[in-house]
Structures are given as C-alpha cells and as structure tokens.
C-alpha cells in the first residue's frame, strides 16, 4: 500500500511539473488547443494506468510522458485528416480569454514564428518544440526518441536550417 501512495505522490508532482510542457508539445503537434488539452490529460491517464496496472517502474518519468504524448499525437494525426494552413491557424487560435495569449497575438514576430513552425515537418517541429520551447537537454531528447545525442544534435541543426529557409522565402 505504501508503494501505491509513493507512486501517487511522484505522479502528482510530475503532473504539476510537466503538464504545461506536455500541453505545449501536443499543441505544436495538433495545432488545436482543445485537442491538445485532451491529449495532455490522456497522456497522464495512460501513464497512471501503466504505473498501477502493470506495476511498471518508470526510471525517467519526463521521458516516459513525452513518449506517451508522442504516440497519442501520432494516433490523433492518423485519425484526423490534415488541416489546411488556414484551418490550423484558426484552430490553434489560442484561447482568446487567456490574457497571455492575447498579448501573444499582438506580437507579430511570434505570430510569424508560429506560422513557420506549422510549415515544418512534424519531426522537425517536435525537436524544436522539445529543445527550445520546453527547454529539454539534447541528452533528454535522445532518451525520449530512443536515439543517440549526436543524431539529435544533427537533426536539430537541420530543423533550424529548414526554419531559416522558411524565413528566407518570406523575405524574398
């Protein structure tokens, strides 16, 4: 019983610490605020089910959460057809009731950045979201993606290049 209580405590702490980051990760995958909230919640639900039903021991809960979130987002994308860019912008139209987001919408540069991110390939978007928006270390991303840190660094550089190119197209 003590173990269950301990697991519960760790899990709630993980929820408080990482729910925003997982939400952001999902949002930049599906570009739909409501869907991203659902996916974030489902990610934690599945993780808890894994912990108690299979008595699973998770060494790195952050990495595990990202992996579940990644799977959930991929399933979601497969289920739904791809949105057009206009649809995406409309759906991503972050909650207008939220003061922070209203301020964000006023900042044209950030708006452009969001548009450019939407044009990136999903894998590139994932990497940039994890590295720069959620501030994960390269080694942590490597663990989440089950690959080597060097590979992650190379892929991040490529994603940055793609983003740069998108900006250059805009300037022309």
């Amino acid at each position, binding site marked *: *019983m003590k173990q269950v209580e301990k697991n519960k405590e760790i899990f709630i702490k993980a929820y408080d610490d990482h729910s925003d980051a997982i939400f952001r990760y999902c949002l930049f995958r599906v570009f739909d605020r409501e869907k991203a909230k659902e996916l974030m919640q489902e990610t934690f639900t*599945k993780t808890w089910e894994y912990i108690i039903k299979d008595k*699973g021991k998770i060494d790195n809960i952050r990495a595990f959460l990202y992996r579940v979130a990644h799977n959930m987002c991929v399933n979601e*994308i497969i289920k739904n057809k791809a949105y057009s860019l206009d649809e995406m912008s409309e759906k991503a139209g972050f909650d207008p009731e939220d003061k922070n987001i209203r*301020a*964000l919408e006023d*900042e044209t540069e950030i708006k452009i950045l969001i548009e450019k991110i939407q044009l990136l390939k*999903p894998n590139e978007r994932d990497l940039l979201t994890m590295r*720069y928006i959620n501030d994960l270390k390269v080694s942590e991303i490597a663990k989440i993606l*089950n690959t080597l840190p060097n590979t992650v660094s190379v892929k991040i550089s490529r994603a940055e290049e793609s983003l740069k190119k998108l900006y250059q197209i805009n300037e022309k």
Partner: protein
Amino acid sequence: MKNNNFKFKELGNKIKLSKAEKEIYRDKMLEFINKETFIQKSDNKKSIASPFYFGLFIRRHLVLTSLVIILFLSTGLMVSADHAIPNDYLYQMRIKVIEPAQILLAPTAEKKNNLRVKFVDKSLNDFSSVSLKENINQEDKEALIESVSINIENLNNEINNSNKENNPSNSLKTANDLKSVLSSHKIILDKISETNPEITDAEILSLKIDEELDKTENIINTLAQKIQTPDDTNILDQKIDDQKEKINISLLALQNDIKMAKDSKSNSIVDLKEAEEKFTKIKDMTEEFNIKLEQGEKEKAIILYDQIIQKIDELELFIKINQENNIEIPDEKLENKKDVD
C-alpha cells in the same frame, strides 16, 4: 537562429494552460487516480502460503517442479500445455509451470538465458497473434505480461552477473539477442495499436518494451566499452569477424528477398521502392562499419553493428509483414506529407 531561440523561449513562457484550466484538469486527474487506485486495491488478491508438505524442503520448488514434470511427461499433458496459447485452459500452466521449469532445469547459464529470450519472443508473439483475432482474457493477459517482465528482469540480472564474472562477450551476445527480439516486437505492437486502436493493451505493452529497450541499450553500450580492453583484444577481433560474416550473410539474404518480391510482381504487395531505400541505407551503414574498423575504432564499429542488425531485422520484418499479413506498414513520409499539406 539566436533571435529565433529568444522567440521560442518567449513562446514557451507564454503558451500554457490558464490557472482555471489547470485546476479543473488537475482535479479531474486526482479523481481519476483515486478511482483507479481503489479499483486496483480491490482487485488485489492476497495469496496465502499453503502448509504443504514440501514446504519442509529447502529446495522444495525444484523437487515439486521435477515431480510435476515427471507426472506430465507420463500423461502427455505437458506437450499440450507447451503449445497452449492465451485463452487456452492450459496456457497458465505453460507460463507458470512449464516454462519456469524448463529454465530451472537448463544445465548452463547460457542455455537458461537462451530459453528466457526464446520465451519472451514466444509470449510477445502469442500476444500479437491472439489479440488480433480475439480479446485475451484478463488472467492470461496478466500472466503473459508478468512472464515477459520476469524473464527480462532475470535476463538483465544474468547479463550483469556474467559481466561481473569477466565474461562480457557472453553478456553482450545475450543483450543483443534480447534487444533484437524486443525491437522486432515493438514494431509489430506499434503497428497493431495504429491499425487496431481498440487493442489498447498493445500500446501499453509497446511502452513497456520501450522502457526495457532503453535499459538493454544502456547495458549494451556499457558492455561494448568494457570489451575494448587489451585483455579482450583476441576475443574482440574474433567477435568482429563474426559480425562481418553475419552482416554479409544477412545482406545476401535480404537482396534475395527483394529480388523475389520483384519477380513475383502481381501477388507481391511489398513497397519495393521503400524496401530498396532501406536496403541502400543498410549498405551505407555497412560501409561506415568497415571504415570504422579500418580506422581502428572498434568500439564504435560494435555499436554500429548493433544498429545495422536492428535495421536488417526491421527490413526483414517489413518484407515479411507486407507479404504475409494484412497489416499495412506505416508510411512516415505519407504522414509527413499529409501534415504539411
């Protein structure tokens, strides 16, 4: 990019759940975990130790198991149980008695480990094939997952022990075998959960395998580093020769498979272009492997070998699944294209 980094950070700080949203979702999550924990607690049945006569023996499990096996051999029940699959009434017997007994009676640690890897493979195979046809009953499912977990845990312990006893080459072989089995089954389970989302256990099992793969990969990296010591040079050279041979044989076999798929034309549903691309990638990796060897970077070559074998296994599986099953292979490019469109 520096300017973008700043903008990214700003985005990260600004995009988050509102306080109200966070509270609502947190409450919902707390309600869920309390409910789930309660269900779990009521499901837990405490087993009471039996005051059985054999309890007097120190190695009672060995004596008991041997007796059970002798009994089974005489009736033929063991043979039936050994072929039982989930949902068969003898399945629990296979998982809980026959397989552990076979491991227990294996004469050497190496044979025990081979059996463990074999049973993990068999159990995961059973899960995939049966769950595609029907729901596996809860008891059998739990027994299957527990058996896989125990075998993997024991394998990891044995690998560590063998490593401590200065036998890293054996440990590496076992760890590579386990990784290969887990990687192949992960592909199958991911495919099942994609094509049949109602089989939710496939996803859970796949996540579990993911965790185990991480551990096994760490062990492999540690062992590969340890092997690169002067004392082990001869063993290492022998190992590298074996690896070269294995890669060459596998490449020839794959080339043949692709050729056969090409020749069969109408009946084959293999995506030849993708198979050929994967094959070219493996050949590139093999060239890199040879370059590393020429440059004397044996440690890196061993790690690369592991990746090549994994890719070969994946391609073999890709061709096999496409030819034999109705499961379609995931097309990442298509998914990317869809997203960009």
